[in-house]
């Protein structure tokens, strides 16, 4: 079993209201000077055949029209 972590984020240039909301909340907590917050998703999984991962990401985990993804293999 290969362990992997898939990071999925909104594509550059697409408005990310969640990121904006987080960014706006930070100064209220005293965290100044934080910009360009983007909120994505992280999926952890274990696969028999890691070669399947790119296809699986394109078909289901990410929507390639609006999201970029990165696959990170984790050594056990």
């Amino acid at each position: 079993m290969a362990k992997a972590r898939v990071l999925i984020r909104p594509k550059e240039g697409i408005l990310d209201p969640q990121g904006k909301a987080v960014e706006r909340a930070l100064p209220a907590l005293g965290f100044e000077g934080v910009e360009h917050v983007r909120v994505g998703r992280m999926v952890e999984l274990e696969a028999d055949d890691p070669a399947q991962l790119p296809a699986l990401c394109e078909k289901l985990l990410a929507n390639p029209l609006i999201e970029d993804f990165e696959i990170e293999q984790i050594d056990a």
Partner: protein
Amino acid sequence: MKWGVVQFPGSCDERDALRACELAGGEAQLIWHEERDLGDVDAIVVPGGFSYGDYLRAGAIARFSPAMEAVTEFAAAGGPVLGICNGFQVLCEADLLPGALLLNESMRFTCRQVDLQVVQLNPPEGTQSFILPGETLSIPAKHGEGRYWAPESMLDSLEANGQVAFRYAPGENPNGSARDIAGVRNEAGNVLGLMPHPEHAVDPMTGSTDGLKVFEAVGEARV
């Protein structure tokens, strides 16, 4: 006229859709998502709700259901398909319609009556495109993820091909949709999706019956 309304776990507007189909002058039946055979239906509605809990992305999991495989074949054969709200999201995820629906710009779930402009279309010859009346329809919109988005070049080609079917009237865009787009159709013209809910505007008791016109147009596409 026989309608099939697909029901997923988490659908919530399928009953209103059945009623709208009947009021538009047809028979309607539910099609459970595990059903691979659509039977002898003339048109399909993919209704609103939160299919499979909208896990991952709205519509992402529903698109892989057996019923959606059958709907994809039905659409490829020219059958009329209407996707409403979550159904629109499912059709986009299934690549039956172009573009994607993102979290509302406001981050809020919006629920209100909106004015929709029907974009007058010249359907491609030889297709069974819906002919919608060129007018403004008053229809409720209720969603949290309804911001229509596509790359600029895709938006240009959708407009050039007459695939933009509905726009929010000026000042009515509830979600930040690109170019005020509320609904689109596929290139052939037989698959139509929109975020607002025509099935909730079919009875004078609730203020508007404009939604019936959408169902009637879809029904006529197959006649």
